[in-house]
């Protein structure tokens, strides 16, 4: 069969070319053959294609002809034919091939700045998830990791443009996906980031936050290849907060005890020192931080794959397993992935295939009790408490300590939280060639996941006040499945210098999310892990979505190109009359360097492009039982016991909201690509300007509306109230020197974006997000017109009053309910009315960076390769909640050594306010908690060595093709002024797991310094 086809092909070529000589050879790249590369003679229709071993024969060549060797993703080479019989060519990968991409489901996409991360970059070192793999590698993409292993990574493309879910759309082999933890990064062929107007607009309402296309590895015809990789390493984090030791804390307690019953002091004496004045901690000095941090937390990654096929059937099979411990004790993430991709050419007009990715992961997050983040307990616990008391029980504070910190080590022990998640991402497709250039492609995809969350909260006895003899079991099951049916009619044809491309697409998504919550308790045994008698609630959220898309492009002579697209989306999430919206785009490009008049020895490439596009959004993607929330609904779960039995109670849970409609965004992009010295040096620049209107916001109705919802603020309602603008630029600079033994490359990118909220029409002049309670009752991220998105808002902290008189001098408004005294925080009286009131609050910080940047250096000499990746964030503020625990002094907790210099006596001049029990004046949201969290980090250093081919071939009778060993250090050095553990602040997750805030340091696990060594084998 194979032979026949080659013969046919050969005959065909001979038939065309009866004159001239014949040349044959081999096309490869980095010692790998390239099957399917195109060889042509410039200015003629004569050409050839390499076979599965990368070999070709080209006939009809005459001396002086220019032979062009090209392959998608590689730099095209031209050779002037000088009569050789044999020409072997090695093509170089094109690092700057940014302006053209084929979106497998929709058609061809041109004139767009696309950042591509390729397989070899991804496989350089083990990434635990795809978000991390992207970090620092693509201009305009900001990646914030969640800290603890397995937590969600936030990826923001070109700045935040919505108040809602800002996650980009992920498309894996044409299947829409949310959870990428089920994909092994080493099985990815390439990741393309679509970010500009035209390319995101073809995804219409789904593309507003940018699109990340992930293409997994497909089978390649030729010899079967096996890949095997193993890496293992250790993670450590050695920074600690400087806390009071036992002597200092006991002394502190004595001082606090003298305040008991007085202004600012606790209501009751501090029992531990009051009842026993000679208490000295009994020689115990527990370092709770050391107890909580795990040293040398292991990480291991194994992956294996088989790739191969014939011209008819191609396949790729892969498996991977990751096992990572967290640096917080008893946290862990495990992932298993399986991937099978197959393509079959049934006939010359029909191709069918499938992609299948199955993932399973298990996560153990840090345990929380009483709504407290773990580190809050770690910082607050008294150092005079041992982890375990002499009687073997876990220790704990008793009531008289007036310290309500929990023993976090006990919490880790008596709670077993486990989240397991299975994910299936699969598709089958058929592609029919109808006529010359006209194809019909139909793809049916399934994205199904099940998430099992178990919280086993076992009964425990402790040597303190929090013992409990009940076992509480809580389980949540979320089933999320969606079918995506995509049909594309594509026409693609080249007439001389005219290239025409057009697609018509119909796409339908049917999705259903089913949630079941169950819990129960027993006093019998902590060994019972399942519910015998419990309560259960369920709800189902159906979502349907239909789209039509038209996409047309025209290119002339590789010089001028235009593209137009229009898309109609219809969503079930909106009221009937607002269900439909249209999204259009237009783009144009001019390849100046291909013009005849363009003559330059220096500039090898110059392309100018511009695009306009519309995108939108129909939801904030929250998992919420309110289906059709634009219709009033009544719910029966207002239970009340009547006549001795529990009866359902019905009450309204939402009001009619017929105005709910689409968020729309108009994007513009202007940019150019420049290549110098045969594209060795490349420079890309893009400017973008995105205007959003009708941003959907869950507007809090007045509490007096009387509809149940949030316990403090009542119900909310989606309204299209926001107007915002994002503008910014991206610059990428690259240099390649691939000649000689010493090869090196360097590239750097910098991106800046600024989000400006223009208007918040409607009920509110401000919106508040992200509640971290304890310790703060107020939400921490604010949105208001004329200000940056999610800024921090509060008082301007100016220091501490030295005396009562000093306070009274500034704040003399006798109408005020309470006036601060000496030792209290001095906030700026902005309106000068002699009292600190809400009107004195101002913008105190902006968690959006001025710019993010990264640079990458790579070099290789003989078998050695070295890579360095730096990434940085500049001009960003964070709200450091740890400051509350280090110096807040609202309760008799342990604190940082900062409190040793707190205000104690009139006249003390300090920056740490006095102890003030139970009152949050001094700990009001203020600039006291805001810090600059800019940083520059050496994210990655990798040193590798590939065994010389001659040596490799000596093993196993030449079966081995490649052996590479490498060592790597992650997060080795961080330059920052930030006082918290890690300036890379993990995203702030809400109750449903979505990101609801940014720049709030709530002590998520910091990024550890990781040392990894690995081995890659190919045979």
């Amino acid at each position: 069969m194979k032979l026949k086809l080659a013969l046919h092909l050969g005959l065909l070529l001979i038939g065309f070319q009866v004159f001239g000589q014949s040349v044959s050879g081999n096309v490869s790249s980095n010692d790998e053959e390239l099957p399917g590369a195109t060889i042509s003679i410039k200015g003629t229709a004569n050409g050839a294609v390499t076979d599965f071993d990368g070999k070709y024969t080209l006939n009809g060549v005459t001396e002086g002809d220019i032979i062009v060797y090209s392959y998608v993703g590689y730099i095209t080479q031209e050779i002037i034919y000088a009569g050789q019989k044999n020409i072997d060519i090695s093509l170089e990968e094109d690092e700057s091939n940014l302006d053209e991409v084929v979106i497998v489901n929709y058609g061809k996409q041109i004139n767009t700045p696309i950042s591509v991360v390729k397989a070899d970059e991804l496989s350089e070192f083990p990434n635990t998830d795809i978000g991390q793999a992207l970090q620092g590698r693509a201009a305009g993409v900001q990646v914030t990791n969640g800290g603890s292993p397995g937590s969600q990574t936030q990826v923001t493309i070109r700045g935040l443009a919505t108040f809602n879910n800002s996650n980009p759309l992920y498309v894996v082999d044409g299947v829409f996906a949310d959870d990428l933890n089920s994909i092994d990064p080493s099985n990815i062929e390439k990741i393309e980031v679509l970010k500009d107007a035209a390319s995101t607009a073809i995804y219409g309402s789904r593309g507003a936050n940018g699109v990340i296309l992930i293409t997994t590895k497909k089978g390649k015809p030729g010899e079967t290849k096996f890949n095997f990789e193993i890496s293992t390493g250790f993670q450590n984090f050695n920074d600690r907060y400087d806390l009071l030791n036992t002597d200092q804390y006991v002394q502190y307690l004595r001082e606090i005890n003298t305040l008991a019953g007085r202004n600012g002091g606790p209501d009751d004496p501090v029992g531990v020192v009051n009842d026993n004045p000679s208490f000295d901690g009994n020689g115990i000095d527990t370092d709770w931080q050391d107890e909580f941090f795990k040293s040398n937390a292991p990480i291991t990654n194994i992956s294996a794959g088989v790739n191969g096929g014939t011209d008819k059937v191609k396949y790729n099979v892969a498996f991977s397993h990751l096992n990572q411990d967290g640096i917080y004790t008893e946290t862990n993430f495990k992932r298993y992935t399986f991937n099978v991709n197959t393509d079959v050419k049934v006939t010359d007009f029909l191709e069918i295939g499938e992609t299948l990715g199955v993932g399973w992961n298990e996560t153990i997050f840090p345990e929380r009790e009483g709504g407290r983040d773990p580190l809050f307990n770690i910082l607050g616990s008294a150092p005079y408490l041992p982890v375990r008391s002499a009687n073997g029980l876990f220790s704990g504070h008793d009531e008289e300590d007036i310290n309500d910190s929990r023993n976090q080590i006990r919490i880790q022990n008596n709670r077993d939280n486990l989240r397991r998640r299975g994910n299936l991402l699969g598709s089958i497709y058929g592609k029919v060639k109808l006529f010359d250039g006209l194809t019909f492609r139909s793809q049916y995809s399934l994205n199904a996941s099940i998430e099992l969350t178990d919280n086993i909260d076992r009964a425990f006895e402790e040597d303190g006040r929090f013992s409990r003899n009940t076992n509480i079991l809580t389980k949540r099951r979320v089933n999320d499945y969606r079918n995506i049916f995509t049909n594309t009619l594509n026409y693609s044809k080249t007439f001389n210098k005219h290239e025409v491309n057009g697609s018509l697409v119909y796409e339908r998504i049917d999705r259903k999310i089913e949630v079941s919550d169950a819990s129960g308790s027993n006093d019998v045994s902590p060994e019972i892990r399942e519910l015998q008698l419990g309560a259960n609630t369920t709800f189902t959220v159906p979502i349907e979505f239909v789209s039509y898309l038209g996409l047309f492009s025209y290119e002339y002579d590789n010089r001028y190109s235009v593209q137009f697209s229009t898309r109609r989306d219809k969503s079930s999430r909106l009221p009937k009359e607002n269900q439909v919206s249209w999204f259009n785009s237009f783009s144009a490009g001019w390849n100046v360097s291909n013009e005849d008049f363009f003559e330059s020895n220096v500039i090898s490439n110059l392309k100018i492009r511009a695009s306009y596009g519309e995108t939108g959004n129909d939801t904030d993607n929250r998992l919420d039982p309110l289906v059709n929330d634009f219709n009033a609904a009544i719910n029966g779960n207002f239970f009340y016991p009547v006549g001795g039995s529990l009866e359902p109670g019905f009450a309204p849970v939402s009001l009619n909201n017929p105005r709910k409609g689409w968020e729309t965004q108009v994007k513009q992009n202007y940019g150019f690509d420049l290549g110098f010295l045969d594209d060795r040096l490349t420079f890309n620049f893009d400017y973008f300007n995105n205007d959003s209107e009708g941003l959907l916001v869950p507007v809090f109705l007045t509490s007096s509306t009387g509809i149940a919802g949030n316990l403090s603020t009542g119900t909310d309602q989606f309204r299209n109230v926001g107007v915002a603008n994002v503008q910014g630029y991206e610059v990428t600079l690259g240099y390649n020197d691939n000649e000689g033994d010493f090869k090196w490359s360097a590239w750097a990118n910098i991106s800046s974006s600024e989000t400006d909220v223009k208007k918040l029409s409607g009920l509110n002049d401000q919106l508040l997000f992200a509640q971290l309670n304890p310790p703060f009752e107020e939400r921490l991220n604010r949105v208001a017109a004329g200000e940056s998105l999610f800024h921090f808002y509060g008082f301007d902290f100016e220091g501490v009053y030295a005396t009562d008189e000093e306070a009274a001098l500034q704040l003399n408004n006798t109408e005020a309910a309470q006036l601060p005294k000496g030792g209290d925080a001095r906030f700026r009286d902005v309106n000068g009315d002699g009292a600190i009131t809400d009107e004195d609050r101002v913008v105190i910080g902006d968690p959006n960076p001025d710019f993010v940047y990264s640079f990458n250096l790579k070099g290789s000499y003989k078998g050695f390769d070295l890579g360095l990746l730096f990434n940085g964030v500049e001009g960003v503020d964070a709200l450091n909640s740890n400051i509350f625990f280090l110096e807040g002094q609202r309760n008799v907790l342990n604190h940082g050594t900062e409190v040793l210099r707190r205000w104690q006596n009139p006249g003390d001049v300090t920056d740490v306010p006095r102890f003030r029990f139970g009152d949050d004046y001094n700990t009001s949201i203020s600039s006291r908690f805001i810090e600059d969290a800019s940083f520059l980090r050496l994210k990655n250093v990798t040193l590798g060595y590939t065994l010389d081919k001659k040596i490799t071939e000596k093993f196993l009778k030449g079966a081995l093709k490649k052996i590479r060993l490498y060592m790597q250090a992650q997060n080795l050095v961080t330059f920052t002024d930030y006082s918290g553990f890690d300036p890379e602040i993990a995203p702030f997750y809400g109750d449903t797991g979505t990101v609801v805030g940014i720049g709030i340091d709530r002590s998520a696990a910091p990024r550890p310094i990781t040392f990894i060594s690995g081995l890659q084998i190919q045979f």
Partner: protein
Amino acid sequence: MKTYIKILGILLSIGLIGAFVASCDDDVSVENKNDVSLDTFFITLSQIEGAANGCYAQLQSGGLYQRYGYIFPDAMSDEMVAGGDPNFAPFYRFEFTAQSGPIAQYWTSCYNGIGACNFVLDNEGLMRSNIATSDFTKADVDDVIGQALFLRGVYYYLLVKRFGDVPLKIEFSEAELDAPRSSTVEVYNRIIQDFEKATGLLFDKGATEEGRATKGAAYGMLGKVLLHRNEYDKAQTALAKVNGYSLLPIEEYEDNFNESGEFNDESMFEVTFTGEFGTETERWAQNGQGFAEQTFHSQEYTGWGNLKPSVKLDNEFEDDDPRRTVAYVKDDEKYGPNKEFTRSGGIAWLKFSQLYQQESVVENSGINVRFLRYADVVLMQAEVEYSLGNDAAAIGFLNQIRDRAKLPRYGTAEMDSRGFSVSTDEGIFKAIRHERFVELCGEQHRFDDLVRWNRDPEELAIFPDENYNNPDISQRRPRNYDSGVHRLMPIPQNEIDTNNAISSEDQNPGY
């Protein structure tokens, strides 16, 4: 072979295109099957009863009697002292602000309750027109409407006591409209109107299920509000219509505060709890929704000692008052069903704790709140008569309470010698104050009583701890109480922020 594959290919291709054509569907509408739609409601008895049940649910929320409904008035009174929990300190010390989350919760719970009531009341016409075609009767509808009116009155009562002027929302159809603060007088008028109407619609106790509002409860609450409005004649009339209730004998007195004695002859309206809950999410939701039938009262007060009986209260009790050992326990005193346990760990409330039947408390309590009990009605009657100048009648009512406690009557030499002579008006008023203080301690009456008697500046100026009456005045700890400010709590900031009809200038003074 090749031809065969080709034919297969053609068939597959046709199938592919066929599947596409067949599945082209533009309809995306989905149905909400999690909730009930308005179109099909109020047509069965279980639905209209369910709607009435929904009106009660907010009483169990975190903002009300799961937590803050008792914490606010108790912490602000002089019958309790706060323990170690910093969350109680702002209320105990009068240091709360408009940003307070608990205050917002209390406010929101009340309005959610009002919203549920208005939803029922707005559909009265629909229910009445459905009588002919459904399984419910006119009496059923009357009862449902009566309950909604009664509960709306209760929620507005809870609001007006804490906040004074509040937005008056009485139409569900206008739920979304921003309402300005209505004057306290208007709010009270609406409360009185609602209770009056409810008296004509509700069933008597015994004729309806335990837990539902009754005619007697409506008269009791009507009398209470009229008394607080100084409309003594009307109050006298309303309270006189409370019948069918009696004071329990002192041996059964503790049934007013425990789980086994719920809905006894003295009890007129209770907020019902069972101690049960569904999922953990529901248990902590605190918004009145979900299966969460537990209150944290017992754990907060008695378990963790966050609010404890004050020395001032302890001093108020006469030494031989048997109600004292039912109300709270002190160190080394006995407690439990057979007095087999000995208290250590300091003074603690027995009222509304499980210590009447076991050694320690449980976190999720099922003990009902006694929102209104007959002893309160009797004491209100005493106060009404006193206010109308009927001293003898007033003393008569007071002595009903004394008789039940098997204590000396007012007007006797014994009581005169204890400093409670009732020969003067002031003496009678003092007796009323004393009796309300001890009889109703720990039941959220004291702070509101002090305010309406104008005695709050005096009684709340000093923390009610062991030094409250220390002869050395410098040892007394002054409390940050300003009657010009702290009689009312601030309107929650989020209401001001979102309600266009209320601005910062409309905030209560001092906040």
